[in-house]
């Protein structure tokens, strides 16, 4: 009985706080993305040779982000029937966009106008109970051009 109550409380906490956290995070991502729209991050490996940057520098941005209890529970249910796990899709989407934004912030603080050869790397950091993946790290890096 006690276990059931604990489970319900954890689910409720996860649902409530997780939802608020996600909404707030998305809002913050959208406003910052608008702010850095004039600083493009490009995946091109070979920049135009006519570009003559005053300086180039490696810029990075990383974030470790965790899924909440409720979503993890849902995804375990999803494991039974299969199909899209939306809870994790938004987690990874948020993590990638956040990492790119942090990379752009790093570049912006150095006075960059372009970021080339952007690479993204994802790794799972924390394996929660029952080896369910609890959190992911996303690293974004690229070469910033200052002119």
């Amino acid at each position, binding site marked *: 009985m006690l276990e059931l109550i604990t489970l319900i409380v954890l689910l409720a906490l996860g649902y409530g706080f*997780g939802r608020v956290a996600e909404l707030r995070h998305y809002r913050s991502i959208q406003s910052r993305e608008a702010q850095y729209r004039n600083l493009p991050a490009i995946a091109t490996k070979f920049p135009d040779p006519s570009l003559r*940057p005053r300086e180039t*520098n490696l810029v990075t941005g990383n974030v470790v982000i965790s899924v909440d209890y409720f979503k993890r529970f849902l995804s375990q249910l999803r494991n039974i029937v299969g199909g899209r796990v939306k809870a994790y899709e938004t987690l990874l989407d948020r993590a990638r966009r956040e990492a790119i934004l942090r990379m752009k912030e790093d570049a912006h603080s150095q006075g960059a106008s372009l970021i080339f050869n952007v690479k993204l790397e994802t790794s799972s*950091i924390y394996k929660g109970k029952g080896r369910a993946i609890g959190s992911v*790290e996303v690293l974004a*890096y690229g070469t910033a051009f200052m002119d």
Partner: protein
Amino acid sequence: MLVTNLEIVPGKRIQKHYGLVQGSSVRAKHVGRDIMAGLKNVFGGELKGYTELLQESRQEATDRMIEQARAVGANAVLNVRFSTSSVTAGAAELFAYGTAVILE
């Protein structure tokens, strides 16, 4: 020391290749951070402690790579890549590698 993940640097020619240089750093998280992470696993959200930890160790790996490049006499590291692997439960290896060269 110029560090970039491009294969060329616009406006500069590569004079000499020194081959691969690398740096790695294995870090474990401490208990306090683990407890915080446990809480965050209920509520969801960013694990700031981990973000910082990984950032620091990646910086250390990069510094070691740069040190190696300096030791062979290079003045730039091109085509830098990062990679992460978990070695045991609770420890991660951060690895940085690139090509050491002399740019004119």
